């Protein structure tokens, strides 16, 4: 192996899949050999069986659906407000000076710490779940988008000025298109974080969702169901990540890949 030398596509897929296989193999070895009792860790086979019964008997698909709805809903609201605000902050230093100190403070407030308050304010319904996701992602989106927009290449801005652009044109035709690919990357990242908040929100005061199912399974000591729930979250994350990347390649063919 030499530093920084790229690998072929085939080798990369093989290596990537290889670790999954190794991971499951170690898991299988630890459980089937009886080294770890099933009370603590279900075997791969038992986990799959638990998943099958969850999907066929307990309507787990509905739980998945509602969780996806919460994540995407809360995240979409955060992005719809956070991206424009971040762009304005990056473009206009006055706007940045006004919001930046507060947002820098607010983004260190742990979203999960708001759950008791939010239950008080919004009850245990969907509004509360969406609020947790929103608080968890909004401030991160704003601050990261502001940094991206603020780092727009000055020489491109100057070139646009000499071509007759005014403030409005600079924002719409230079700052926004130049920031777009990195903004999408930021959204991909923050969507991943949103998934961790939704589960926390569902562990407390929820009657549906993947997090709620995991909580229920704990009472029954069903490690198979718990693990299956966690794996489903991982798989959904993997798929959305892949879709996001594919979308970015399609939207921004000009960006060097």
């Amino acid at each position, binding site marked *: 192996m030499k530093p920084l030398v790229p690998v072929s596509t085939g080798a990369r897929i093989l290596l990537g899949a290889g670790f999954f296989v190794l991971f499951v193999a170690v898991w299988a070895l630890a459980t089937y050999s009886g080294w770890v009792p099933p009370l603590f860790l279900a075997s791969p086979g038992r986990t799959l069986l638990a998943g099958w019964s969850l999907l066929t008997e307990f309507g787990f698909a509905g739980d998945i659906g509602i969780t996806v709805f919460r994540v995407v809903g809360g995240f979409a609201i955060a992005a719809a407000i956070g991206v424009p605000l971040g762009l304005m902050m990056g473009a206009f230093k006055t706007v940045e000076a006004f919001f930046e100190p507060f947002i820098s403070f607010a983004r260190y407030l742990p979203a999960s710490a708001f759950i008791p308050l939010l239950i008080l304010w919004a009850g245990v319904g969907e509004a509360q779940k969406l609020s947790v996701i929103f608080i968890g992602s909004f401030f991160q989106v704003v601050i990261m988008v502001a940094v991206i927009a603020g780092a727009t290449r000055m*020489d*491109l801005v*100057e*070139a*646009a*000025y*000499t*071509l*007759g*652009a005014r403030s409005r*044109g600079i924002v719409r*035709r*230079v700052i926004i*298109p*130049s920031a*777009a690919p990195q903004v999408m990357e930021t959204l991909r990242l923050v969507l991943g974080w949103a998934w961790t908040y939704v589960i926390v929100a569902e562990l407390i005061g929820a009657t549906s969702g993947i997090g709620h199912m995991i909580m229920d399974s704990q009472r029954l000591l069903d490690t198979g169901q718990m693990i299956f729930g966690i794996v489903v979250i991982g798989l959904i994350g993997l798929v959305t990540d892949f879709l996001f990347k594919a979308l970015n390649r399609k939207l*921004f*063919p*000009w*960006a*060097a890949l």
Partner: protein
Amino acid sequence: MTACTAIGSPVSDKTLRIAGVTRTFPGQGRAGPTLALQPTDLTVRPGEFVAILGPSGCGKSTLLRIVAGLDRPTAGTVTLDDVPVMGPGPDRGMVFQSYTLFPWLTVAQNIRFGLAERGLPEDQQRAIAEKFIARTGLKGFENHWPRQLSGGMQQRTALARALANDPEILLLDEPFGALDHQTRELMQELLLEIWEADRKTVLFVTHDIDEAIFLANRVVVMSARPGRIKADVTVPLPYPRDWTVKTTPDFAALKARLMAEIREEVRKAATAA
């Protein structure tokens, strides 16, 4: 804006006057302020091709940026057709040394940037872009992304983008400085060809003596920092010129003279540093 009707007019009719322009950069930390440009006067008449020649760091780019409106003078004024320059505008087109094509726009879209900003109808934009694509030898590259282009092709596009906007004056800040020697000569010939056809006023900053003589009808030599104009030389070589002019005795004589001027300044700059 009447620039639309001016497209295709052979000669621009506006004089650029730089009067007493000075630039001092404020000090940072404990360092005192830096005087980059001593009071400078320069008049560029319509249709002239003026090269500003000087050692690096002499303030020649600063002067050009002040004309472009991208930098403000500490003192003095710049006027174009007796209107003071208060900021950047489409009447002063610029090509930078660094590659400044918008990476998210194709070659054709880059060339149309200023036209779209002006709100020109789609078909006019396309017609003007096509014309300058042809004139700068970019046929077949219209739909390429900037990252797919060589440095020379990128600067062709930047030149076409500035020309398409039909500015009163073209400001060129070492536009071929980052190119290899052969590409640079090719680009010089292209620029010369375009200028000979249009006679658009050009202010061209360079540190390359050959380039200055080959292109310009007037060479202004600047001193080492803090910059000031120490010589203003007319180039007696007739247009149209081609590369063979570089081997003529007149060219050599002028080159010898300018070299002497520049060497002195380069030495001063080196010992000052």
